[in-house]
């Protein structure tokens, strides 16, 4: 304490101002404070606005996919054309191609027009026949094949109209744009309006978007996410049955048993780094290891599931370890203290207590896997798949699509109607993700424990 000297003048007395008057400098500093706060608030506002705009844009574009325009007309299934031998033999009926059904639909529509006295000035025959979707004839054929007795009768058919007419009723196509479009014409739209006036054409809720498979470039109106949902479901099953047991086992070892040595360190660093490896790299791994090396089929849910498993493992391991870590050591000590082995203390006491945390982490990992796209592109899931895969296990090896990949696939098509479908598929995907996250939140709330 040699230097504790206090010359009387050491502290020049501060100019004493009243506390009640804010001085110039403080005023400036408070202004800076206000600006700083405003920056923070606007950052949050920008983030929230981005979220709202994103959601609004997807929903406003995609909601149309859940509505579809149908034409309801009586169709005469002319026996002379469909069953030339007249013996109603299913094998013979099968030989009749969809073009014939197309002609039947065409004739029926013409008949309806004459009956109701609908005449549109300057309408070409092609405009009339193209009003009905190309997919409608295939659907009609399937209906007849399923029930050959319909041949010769006149049935009420509910058929899809073409994508442009459908778009006209959803505001995507206008008379002006139709005039410039080679796939439709104002006359066709007038015809549609006339049919609508007679109550034969209506835009309705579209369940088949959820159940239909993909459709080809010319038939956006028939495309659905059925195969994609099933493919995603299969992949989630694979992830669930592989990633969860392996992830939980690995976490138990690392958290409870692993000796503190170099190898354990390497594994730990490895896992945290794997969690940050770009997902597309896992796609390359899947392509090289599972398809080129092991020879598993392309586009198969099993390969997608394996790739997503490897990708999800770090997430599940990190979440599970956090859950295990949250169980206080006193529980382990208590079990060991009554003579349980280390293994028994973990499996009988620690693991059940950590279960809610593990479940939450697992669901979040699954949600992440469900939305992942990039690695699936590389293992051939972009392929056009129109057939539903079989039931598991064989079905795991059949070609399928996946929801996010189906979205990508549709964005690559020329017809703008597919953009609506892509946004619609996103809505389906987001609804699934929302449900999974709600379950996770519910589990966390219900089982949350404070030690």
């Amino acid at each position, binding site marked *: *304490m040699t230097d*504790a000297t206090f010359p009387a003048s*050491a*502290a020049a007395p*501060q100019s004493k101002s009243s*506390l009640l008057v*804010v001085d110039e*400098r*403080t005023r400036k500093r408070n202004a800076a404070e206000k600006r700083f706060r405003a920056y923070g608030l606007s950052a949050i506002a920008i983030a929230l606005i981005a979220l709202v705009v994103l959601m609004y844009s997807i929903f406003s574009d995609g909601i149309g996919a859940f509505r579809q325009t149908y034409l309801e007309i009586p169709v005469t299934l002319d026996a002379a054309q469909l069953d030339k031998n007249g013996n109603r033999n299913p094998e013979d009926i099968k030989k009749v191609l969809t073009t014939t059904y197309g002609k039947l639909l065409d004739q029926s529509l013409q008949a309806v027009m004459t009956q109701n006295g609908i005449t549109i000035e300057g309408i070409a025959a092609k405009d009339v026949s193209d009003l009905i979707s190309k997919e409608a004839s295939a659907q009609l054929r399937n209906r007849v094949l399923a029930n050959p007795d319909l041949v010769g009768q006149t049935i009420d058919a509910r058929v899809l109209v073409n994508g442009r007419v459908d778009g006209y009723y959803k505001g995507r196509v206008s008379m002006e744009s139709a005039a410039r479009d080679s796939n439709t014409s104002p006359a066709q739209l007038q015809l549609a309006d006339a049919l609508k006036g007679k109550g034969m054409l209506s835009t309705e809720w579209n369940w088949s978007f959820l159940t239909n498979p993909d459709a080809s470039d010319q038939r956006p109106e028939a495309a659905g996410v059925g195969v994609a949902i099933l493919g995603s479901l299969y992949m989630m099953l694979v992830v669930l049955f592989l990633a969860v047991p392996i992830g939980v086992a690995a976490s138990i070892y690392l958290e409870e048993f692993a000796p503190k040595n170099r190898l354990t360190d390497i594994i730990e660093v490895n896992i945290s780094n794997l969690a940050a490896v770009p997902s597309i790299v896992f796609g390359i791994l899947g392509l090289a290891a599972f398809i080129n090396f092991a020879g598993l089929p392309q586009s198969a849910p099993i390969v997608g599931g394996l790739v997503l498993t490897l990708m999800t493992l770090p997430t599940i391991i990190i979440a599970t370890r956090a859950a295990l870590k949250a169980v206080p050591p006193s529980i382990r000590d208590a079990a060991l203290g009554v003579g349980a082995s280390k293994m028994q203390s973990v499996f009988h006491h620690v693991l059940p207590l950590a279960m809610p945390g593990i479940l939450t982490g697992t669901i979040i990992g699954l949600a992440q896997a469900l939305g992942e796209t990039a690695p699936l592109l590389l293992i051939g899931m972009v392929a056009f798949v129109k057939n539903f895969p079989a039931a598991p296990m064989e079905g795991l090896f059949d070609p399928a699509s996946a929801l996010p990949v189906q979205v990508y696939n549709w964005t690559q098509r020329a017809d703008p109607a597919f953009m609506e479908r892509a946004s619609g598929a996103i809505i389906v995907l987001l609804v699934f993700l929302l449900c999974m996250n709600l379950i996770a939140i519910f589990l966390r709330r219900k089982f949350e424990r404070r030690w």
Partner: protein
Amino acid sequence: MNDMRILERAVEQTDIKISARKVQVHYGEKHALKDVDVDILDKTVTAFIGPSGCGKSTFLRCLNRMNDTIDSCRVDGRIALDGEDIYDKRVDPVQLRARVGMVFQKPNPFPKSIYDNVAYGPRIHGLARNRAELDEIVEKSLRGAALWNEVKDRLSEPGTGLSGGQQQRLCIARAVATQPEVLLMDEPCSALDPIATSQVEDLIDHLREQFSVVIVTHSMQQAARVSQKTAFFHLGNLVEYADTDDIFTRPRDPRTESYISGRIG
């Protein structure tokens, strides 16, 4: 109201620095301080003692409005610095805290150099017009905190590299550098060893020559060593406030006596 005005005049006439009247503090539902009346004298060391949870630190934090940072905290009553109510709407706590400095329980130097730690206050309050003046303030403050000789050759090293006692003296130097009129110290020695404690205690004695010091301590010996006035708090009440000598030799309240003789604590 009449006696209130008399009190105010008294504040102006004598060397009372801070006067507190009927101070109540609530933390949410909890009533942490009840009706505290204290006059803190200028150029004096005032000690707040009492068992833990008695409200002494809470009251200390009221004196420079550090309680404002706690959302659930509500302060009623009147606390005046030089006769001006510090809880008046027009008062900017930033200006108040420049005049009523604070030193905390645990040494908390900023992760900056020793120089920047001490220069922080003068810089934000604009006390120096140029580098030379700032250098002077830093040196004076470090001398004032009895730290200059130990650190003058390594002013650019981080303050966190000092020993615990040195860190606490650095924090005192940092508080002194803003040239406060009152220095509040919240158990400044509780994290220090006996040697560092005695250094800080000597320092407090010197600081009294410049301004008033209010120290919260749980050590009665420390209160007896460094302070001239002592206030004893118990369960949110100010039980007794008198000259330190009187409190320790002739306590008037039985509760004070029990505490001093070690029966409540």
